[in-house]
């Protein structure tokens, strides 16, 4: 008995001491604790630093890391920061990691503790603009960039430096202000396997009917015609298809014309208008174009890989099992580096619908849906000295740095370190691999943006349920019912929060009635609604 007790306590003591030894916080040799500090500095801190600018460059540009695991570590922003610090010895640039979750960022912002320059989708910023968490950039964008010599783009207005004006200006917040700069561009395209195309005897399709024929032929030959994932349909498919089917009637339903944006974004339907149109029966079961849209998307999906929910879509294309893949320019870089790809590939853009595809087709070329990989916003930390963006000296310096990173000589060091993203600054050449995407980006920009712009909950329901519809777990009617309810909920939240000017829109709606007379199949609400 006594031995049992002795054993019990000795063993306990041994376990405890081993445990303590293991837990003892001694950093091991050669092991850098990735949790210890979430920021790296480009240089050591000199004593006379007045402005420590904390900057989140994002995963593509974060110095020291290797994007996509290909090539040498990034160093572009190290060089840019060093050049800036040399120019302004009282300023230090610290690079910070991206925020893990939105709540974390929100918490930081509400305490003015976030990094000065953030990199988040600007749509995520919009719900919070009235909280004075972000600095509006209009005053700076409308004025010269001080680093630009006379006569070059940017010497009159910072704005003019951006190559893709429509997309960049499309990021205007609902309150009409600009909170981000679109640092670069990402565009989508269809990648195709030239060998399979040759084997099957097809070429680049000129219109959607030909595209579908091509895919049918490819499937007959035993290949998967196209690789996609469900997110693509929710993010890109809806907007592109909607534009094809509604383009003809836009003059009769585009009710609000933003004086600044209209120049770049003709007929763009923002959420005020979508809400108003929804109440007129658009985007409901009474809207025949809307039903057509979802039918066409489903028809397209049927040419795609079986599992669009979990499968790694790139794999099928790389292994030569699939003839095409719908993706963005980001994977060009990966394909180029992949020595095991034993076929030739190229890209083309989605072809237009014809009246044969749908009687609502307008016949205009497919528009683009591009966006930025990095959108930089300035947070309230930047004007924490006075708390007011108008009077803050610190903010001026942060903006100055932001202007510095967009001047071509500096910008080039970052963007063209590898052919990953398309430059959005005039005077900076696009690397050869990305040239096709630059061409595609010259197309007309989309007229709606359904996901990520409106309401987080709306987006969640849309993208989750779309999968069930596309994979035949719910019928078209059920799907439209889900979307109707979803839009109704979102509409109520939106109007409660923003109080859109429906009266003005109603007036415009009445005024445009004669225009709409010629349109077929306008949604008709049942009596009493």
């Amino acid at each position, binding site marked *: 008995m006594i031995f049992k007790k002795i054993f019990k306590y000795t063993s306990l003591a041994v376990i405890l001491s081993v445990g303590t030894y293991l837990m003892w916080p001694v950093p091991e040799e050669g092991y850098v604790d990735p949790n210890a500090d979430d920021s790296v500095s480009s240089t050591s801190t000199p004593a006379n630093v007045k402005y420590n600018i904390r900057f989140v460059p994002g995963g593509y540009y974060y110095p020291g890391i290797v994007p996509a695991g290909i090539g040498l570590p990034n160093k572009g922003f190290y060089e840019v920061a060093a050049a800036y610090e040399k120019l302004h010895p009282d300023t230090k640039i610290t690079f910070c990691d991206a925020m893990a979750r*939105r*709540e974390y960022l*929100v*918490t930081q*912002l*509400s305490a003015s503790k976030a990094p000065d320059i953030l990199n988040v989708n600007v749509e995520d910023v919009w*719900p*919070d603009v*009235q*909280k004075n*968490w972000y600095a509006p950039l209009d005053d700076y964008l409308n004025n010269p960039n001080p680093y630009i010599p006379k006569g070059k783009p940017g010497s009159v207005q910072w704005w003019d430096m951006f190559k893709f004006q429509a997309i960049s200006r499309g990021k205007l917040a609902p309150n009409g202000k600009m909170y981000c700069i679109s640092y670069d561009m990402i565009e989508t395209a269809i990648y195709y396997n030239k060998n399979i195309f040759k084997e099957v005897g097809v070429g680049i399709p000129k219109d959607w009917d030909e595209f579908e024929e091509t895919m049918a032929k490819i499937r007959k030959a035993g290949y998967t015609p196209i690789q996609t994932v469900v997110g693509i349909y929710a993010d890109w498919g809806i907007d592109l298809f909607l534009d094809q089917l509604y383009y003809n009637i836009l003059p009769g339903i585009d009710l609000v014309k933003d004086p600044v944006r209209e120049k770049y974004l003709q007929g763009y339907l923002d959420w005020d208008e979508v809400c108003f149109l929804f109440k007129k029966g658009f985007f409901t079961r009474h809207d025949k174009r809307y039903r057509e849209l979802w039918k066409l998307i489903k028809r397209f999906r049927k040419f795609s890989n079986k*599992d669009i*929910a*979990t499968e790694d879509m790139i794999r099928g294309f790389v292994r030569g099992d699939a003839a095409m893949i719908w993706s963005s320019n980001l994977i060009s870089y990966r394909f180029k580096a992949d020595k095991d790809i034993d076929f030739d590939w190229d890209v083309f853009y989605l072809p237009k619908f014809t009246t044969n595809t749908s009687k609502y087709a307008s016949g205009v070329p497919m528009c683009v849906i591009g966006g930025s990989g990095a959108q930089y916003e300035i947070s309230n930390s930047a004007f924490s000295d006075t708390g007011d963006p108008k009077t803050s000296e610190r903010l001026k310096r942060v903006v100055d740095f932001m202007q510095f990173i967009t001047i071509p000589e500096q910008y080039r060091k970052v963007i063209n370190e590898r052919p990953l993203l398309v430059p959005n600054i005039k005077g900076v050449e696009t690397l050869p691999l990305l040239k096709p995407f630059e061409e595609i980006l010259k197309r007309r920009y989309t007229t709606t943006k359904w996901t990520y712009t409106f*309401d*987080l*909950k709306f987006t*969640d*329901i849309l993208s*989750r*349920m779309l*999968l*069930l519809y596309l*994979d035949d*777990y*719910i019928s078209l009617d059920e799907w439209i*019912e*889900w979307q109707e*309810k*979803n839009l*109704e*909920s979102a509409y*109520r939240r939106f109007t*409660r*929060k923003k109080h859109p000017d429906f009266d003005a829109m109603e007036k415009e709606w009445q005024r445009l009635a004669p225009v709409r007379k010629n349109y077929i199949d306008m949604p008709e609400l049942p009596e009493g609604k």
Partner: protein
Amino acid sequence: MKNKQDKPFLSYKLRAALVCYSIIIIPVALLGLFTYLPVFWAFQKSFFEFEIGGVSRFVGLSHYIEYFTTDPTTYVSLANMAFFTFFAVVVRLSLPLIVAKLIISINSERWRHFYRILFLAPIVVPGVATMLIWGGMIYSSQGLINEFLRLVGLGSLTHAWLANPGTALIAVAMVGFPFIGGFEVLIYYAGLSGIPESVNEAALLEGCVGIRKFFLIDIPMVLSQLKLILILTVIAGIQGFEGLIILTGGGPGYRTTVPGLMMYFNAFSFQRFGYACAVGVFLFALIFTLTIINFKFFKSAEELQATK
């Protein structure tokens, strides 16, 4: 000492009371701040729409109306919750009881002890790890089930069990198979060992043995344990959603979403804290009502038993 005795009794009592108050004030205040205030806020904030750092707006019953009318996820998630809860009640009331009965039927005390510990042992694995094991090892494409199917030549039956809209609901319900929780086994075991020896002997004398005895004697005798597990399972079924965050995130679509999970998403993903509070209040009301019904219903059943 002397001073104290000179003082009137009441004053001593008062002083003692004051000392009591001054000690108790800390736990009382803690509880007030961290339990009663949140409870109050849950009700209050369900009538407001606000975001962190933003202004809050009184919206009356809008959130409740939205929940029951336009929110398309409500009825799907309620149906899922009902299914999960019903399933859990069925398996947790039956299988552990059978195991407890099997264990108690063994003659050797050492074996009985061993088996109880054996079934209790998995509680040392953190709940999160258990869920991750189910999601990542058992159900995944290269997981236990699929590899087993491939091994026995049924490779065509393999599924992405949790990602497939057709199988996800069942797959989530089956997590924890064969549902022998050490806790339930211990409770039933305690109930079964509480049956008086006289009852057992009388049953034996009347030839009531085996399965017949299990249904006629054992089950009625452990009714209060069954009731306890029933309440616990129902409550856990209504408010449990942690596992779903880990397993499926409520997907695919909303095939495995429950109201608690929607509350979580509304608060922490969609930044709709007021709405989330409204969902929380609804779930509280549901739990509260069911607990009372449960009490009433089973009390009468027990009384019925007593009069038999």
